[in-house]
């Protein structure tokens, strides 16, 4: 019914999808699993019309189609229910369901609200949601809003003859168990009218609801199985694949951490995000935090840098109890932050390298209360040499640097500021292999010099390779703690078990 044939997509140097082929038949639920960065989101975006593939074909009932935009995808019966909600919270449920599709309800130039509400009620009945369609979407809870989105997707039935394919992108990651059960019940009931692609990292759930499962890894489909014939551990193994050979992560340079604790968390919690996180980070230690989206690890890193003060629990920096209310306080406490979005939060791309390097500690470049540009230049040049940043001069604007070099400038800033605690948020995202290896070397240098590092990474492999200790989080809580000494690294499967 719906077929993807050798779809490929690249973003610059990064190959997100490589010859992906899959198939959705009528009245079935197809599960799609894979680690972070496996390509699932990109695939969904291409299928829903938000993005065009670089190569490959999409076929509906055997005919090749071009999904120019989401509206066109709708015409072919493809509808997406997003991971981040896409309802307009300031408008009613009925208005959301029929957004931009009001024509059938027009009478004498005016919208017939009553008819629209009735029609909305019928749509909601299809998914078993009993709410007043005139209610504002913002007044519903998350699970209900998800159902409305599903209803909105199903409303396509009346507008197109094409068979429906509904894409569900991580629909359950923030749902409670009872809501998940309801969702699945609805999906089974709806299989007579639509097929589903169910993307999720929760393997048990995927196996429960799907008829067939595709496993993706590094942008490729590595396996296709009937859900009945496979188990979660099998899927784990397929998701993870090769174990890395050699010194890719410079494991040999991993020296044991020192004794003094610089950053300690006791029962740290942010209401609604994570709870009861405890760890004691020592000098020279690299602590990894593993978890999928919704596990709370992203929020944890933000708390450690003052973006999101904790609502309960204690944070101790160098033995002193603190609540970091702003990044300014975090920097003053000696913490540095390498953000995930380098170009937005990491660098001010329209000012020079030198200015970026001194940004966190401008006083280092100041003399008698004024900026000494010569001093600033020499500081910058020191770090350019030390980190081997490829640039003609320190006055170069950061926007012109490559990703890897930009990352080095951000690192240089915190090294110049002599931060003794570093929060690395996906530090190798978007970097090519060579740049990644340089970053790994730098991380080893830093930890050898005594810096304490908290690391979140895109891949389990990287986390395991680089870290001394790993915390695994799921649904806001720490579910496991692993030691990862140089010669006795845990297996990825072991971590995965506690993540999903």
């Amino acid at each position, binding site marked *: 019914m719906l077929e993807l044939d050798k779809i490929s997509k690249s973003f610059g140097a990064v190959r997100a999808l490589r010859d992906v082929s899959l198939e959705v038949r009528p009245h079935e639920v197809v599960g799609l699993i894979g680690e972070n960065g496996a390509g699932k989101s990109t695939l969904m975006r291409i299928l829903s019309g938000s993005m065009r593939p670089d190569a490959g074909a999409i076929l509906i009932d055997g005919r090749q189609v071009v999904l120019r935009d989401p509206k066109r995808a709708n015409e072919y019966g493809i509808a997406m229910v997003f991971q981040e909600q896409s309802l307009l919270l300031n408008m009613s449920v009925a208005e959301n369901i029929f957004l931009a599709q009001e*024509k059938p309800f027009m009478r004498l130039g005016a919208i017939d609200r009553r008819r629209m509400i009735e029609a909305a009620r019928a749509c909601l009945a299809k998914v078993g949601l009993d709410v007043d369609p005139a209610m*504002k979407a913002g007044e519903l809870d998350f699970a209900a809003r998800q159902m409305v989105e599903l209803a909105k997707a199903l409303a396509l039935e009346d507008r197109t003859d094409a068979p429906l394919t509904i894409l569900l992108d991580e629909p359950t990651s923030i749902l409670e168990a*009872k809501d998940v059960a309801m969702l699945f019940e609805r999906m089974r009931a709806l299989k007579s009218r639509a097929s589903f692609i169910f993307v999720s990292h929760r393997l048990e759930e995927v196996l429960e609801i799907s008829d067939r499962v595709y496993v993706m890894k590094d942008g490729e489909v590595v396996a296709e199985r009937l859900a009945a014939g496979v188990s979660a551990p099998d899927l784990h193994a397929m998701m993870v694949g090769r174990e890395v050979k050699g010194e890719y992560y410079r494991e040999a340079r991993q020296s044991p951490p020192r004794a003094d604790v610089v950053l300690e968390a006791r029962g740290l919690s942010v209401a609604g995000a994570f709870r009861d996180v405890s760890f004691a980070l020592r000098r020279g230690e690299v602590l990894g935090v593993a978890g999928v989206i919704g596990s709370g690890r992203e929020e944890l890193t933000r708390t450690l840098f003052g973006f999101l003060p904790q609502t309960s629990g204690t944070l101790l920096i160098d033995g002193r109890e603190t609540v970091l209310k702003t990044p300014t306080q975090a920097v003053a406490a000696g913490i540095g932050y390498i953000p995930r979005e380098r170009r937005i939060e990491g660098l001010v791309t329209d000012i020079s390298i030198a200015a970026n390097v001194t940004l966190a500690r401008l006083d280092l470049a100041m003399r008698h209360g004024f900026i000494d540009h010569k001093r600033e230049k020499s500081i910058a040049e020191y770090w350019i040499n030390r980190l081997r940043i490829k640039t003609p001069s320190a006055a170069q604007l950061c926007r012109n640097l490559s990703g890897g070099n930009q990352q080095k400038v951000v690192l240089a800033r915190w090294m110049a500021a002599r931060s003794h605690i570093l929060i690395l948020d996906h530090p190798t995202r978007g970097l090519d292999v060579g740049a990644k290896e340089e970053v790994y070397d730098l991380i080893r240098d830093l930890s050898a010099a005594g810096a304490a590092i908290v690391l979140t990474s895109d891949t389990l492999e990287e986390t395991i390779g680089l870290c001394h200790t790993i915390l695994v989080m799921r*649904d806001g809580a720490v579910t496991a703690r692993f030691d990862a000494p140089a010669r006795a690294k845990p297996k990825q499967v072991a971590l995965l078990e506690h993540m999903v």
Partner: protein
Amino acid sequence: MTSTWLSPRAGPAAGSAAPKWRALAPSRFGAIGLAELAPLLVLVGLCVALGLLNPSFFSFRNLVWGVANSAAIPLILAMGATFIILMGSIDLSIEGALSVGTMIVALLCANDSNANNFGWWGPLLALIACTALGLANGLVHVVLRIPSFMATLGVWFVGLGIGTVALGGSEIRVLDRTIRSIAFERVLAFPLAVWIAAAMFFFALFLERKTRFGRYIYAIGGGEDIAALSGVPVKRTRILAFALAGFFNGVAAVLAAAQLGQANTTIANGRLFMTVTAVVVGGTSLSGGWGGIANSLIGVLIVAVLANGMVLLGISPYVHETVQGLMIIAAVALSVRRGRSLIVK
């Protein structure tokens, strides 16, 4: 508010000691009920307070001429501004449009500066010109992709310039009796100006509630990227909204020329500020998506009652602007949605 499901659930809910965890999506988005009613309460409170301080506030004469009539033009201006602000944009060009509109009416109708006597062509052309200015706003904003405040800032001054150039720096008196009568002729004890304003109000209300255009305005204000993904014609709606605002500005301009009986260089002064104050005080959010035409009616009335009250109480008119300034700050500060970390420019 929780949702209920059609199919009954079996068994008790799984209760455990640890609390259930949700992402940071609030379950109730937006102002609570009390905050939504606030503008109305403020209006009622103001009227009561004024009535106590000076009972002549409630005299029929004052209500008609002091409040309703003086609120007529601001209300019409607020109609156009509301649609723009609902989208999250701003229209700074109101004063320029007023300048152009009043100038056209004055120059084309019977006046004391030239021999023209084109009667109703004056107002008609003024409407067309102001709508055209609004269209220009929309095109510059959407096609040249310039933020609305800059686009309308430019058009503001272009309009102001055109208006004052044509006037040659002085004023022109409108002598046409019929044109002037649309401001003063009374129907059922209320001046025509009030009826025209009421008509514009209901027209705007119809557009907001009953047309797709109105829906789309809210959609753009509530989440433009989501709206675009759903197929809402964002560009077209934006341009249309600015042109519509231009139309409302034109009606206001015609009425202003009629009311004042002349066009001069200062006729438009202070209107922008008052209009934005009225819309914001009425409860329409500057970030878009919340509020509406009915809110703006309340807001205009609040501003009008306040101005009337200050006159009745003998307070210097110069305090008006100061008070308005403080009012708008208070209104915006109170309406800001908590917990959304936007970067405000």
